[in-house]
């Protein structure tokens, strides 16, 4: 009886870890999507309404989708240190500390570069930079979507099979 309970536990834990990996793929795709949407709003607010950055960040922290809203919330919080730190370092820190975004290092670097231009005097420059980052993140989003599509089934099968395999070996 204990053997069967053990077998079920092993299979369930293998399936669980597989589902967790699949969920991470889904969350990454969702994160990219939320970042793209929020950056479209950011661009619109800067170019069409000349809204000050703290005001846009506050709006995005409240209204944009999870997990992008966390990034703006963290950046807004860090902006209290402007004067002892540059905005670039504040933004980079917010990007690095918002772990919910599930970004890789190169993705963090691309997003971090916005901090060099954001809030600087020329609207056109800011617009150009945000557009470049949006197009990069749109690419990352598509890649994350492909990853999810290709890997969801494979990982699910692998999870179940490896669970069954471990059970057979132990029995």
């Amino acid at each position, binding site marked *: 009886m204990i053997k069967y309970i053990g077998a079920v536990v092993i299979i369930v834990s293998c399936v669980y870890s597989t589902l967790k990996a699949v969920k991470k793929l889904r969350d990454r795709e969702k994160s990219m999507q939320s970042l793209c949407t929020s950056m479209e709003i950011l661009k619109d607010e800067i170019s069409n309404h000349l809204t000050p*950055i703290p005001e846009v960040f506050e709006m995005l922290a409240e209204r944009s989708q999870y997990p992008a809203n966390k990034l703006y919330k963290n950046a807004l919080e860090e*902006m209290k240190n402007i004067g*002892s730190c*540059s905005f670039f370092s504040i933004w980079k820190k917010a990007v690095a500390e918002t772990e919910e975004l599930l970004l890789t290092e190169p993705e963090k670097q691309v997003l971090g570069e916005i901090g060099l231009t954001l809030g600087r*005097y*020329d609207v056109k420059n800011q617009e150009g930079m945000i557009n470049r980052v949006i197009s990069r993140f749109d690419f990352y989003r598509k890649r994350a979507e492909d990853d999810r599509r290709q890997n969801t089934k494979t990982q699910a099968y692998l999870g179940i099979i490896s669970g069954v395999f471990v059970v057979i070996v132990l029995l």
Partner: protein
Amino acid sequence: MDRDYMVARFDRAIKLLPYGLREKIRKLDKESRASTEEIRLRTGKAPTVLIGGREREFSDVPVTRADLDMLMDIATQVSGHAVQSSMINGYITSTGGFRIGIGGSVYMKDGAVGGYRNITSAAVRISRELLGIGSGLAGQLFENGIFRSTLIVSPPGCGKTTLLRDLIRIISDRGVRVSLVDERGEIAAVFDGKPQFDVGTHTDVLEGCPKAQGITMMTRAMNPQIIAVDEITDIKDVEAMINASNCGIGFLATAHAERLGDLKSRPVYRSLLHADIFKNIIYINKSEDRRTYKIERTGAEND
């Protein structure tokens, strides 16, 4: 003037500086802090404070480009785009009502200044609100309870804007509807939707709008009894003032000049005086630390 208030304004202004410069300037003695008129930063040069018309270094460490960028980031709250219209005129107004003049390389767009390529110098002007300086004058601007349009005249740096602000406050607090067209944001210094200086309880502010357009807009929209503007410099301003004046609106304005005679020699003001809008002229006389005011009635002279 209250010395503690002067020091408090200085302390507030230095919050606009990057941390390193702020720590250095904080070491100035109380007397210097109270009498500092401007803080001046130039790339590659030692930072200075302007006291009594003379610059004095407060650190021997040269100002860097990063210092100026950070000053702008603090002053604009990292929102240069939001103050672009005033930047192309060479200044910005920050929280606290401090005006920052900017020098650097500009780029042109469609024949006009499009913006700054880089900033190489900045002058933070420590504006101070002098509540009550107009209390002895305000009553004299009315005749039989009706406000008579008034022009404040003095050379630069004598406190025209400061007097204008206080007169607006006093008159507005008496229940008179004042529309303030604050093109350069120096009078009310609106920041985050709130005037940083007290401009009275019945004052409506239109900030950042060219005076001529602003006068027309406020006349149409706000039903003002008085319109206040700072530094009339353009013939379009004069035309707008004449039109509004014909609607029965009084004016409280300022102009750069020593005397009325100087104004008459300039075409812009000649037409304004010819239109006989202003019934009172206030002259400001500044000697050392003291300012005195003289009112002259103009009606007969301009008839």
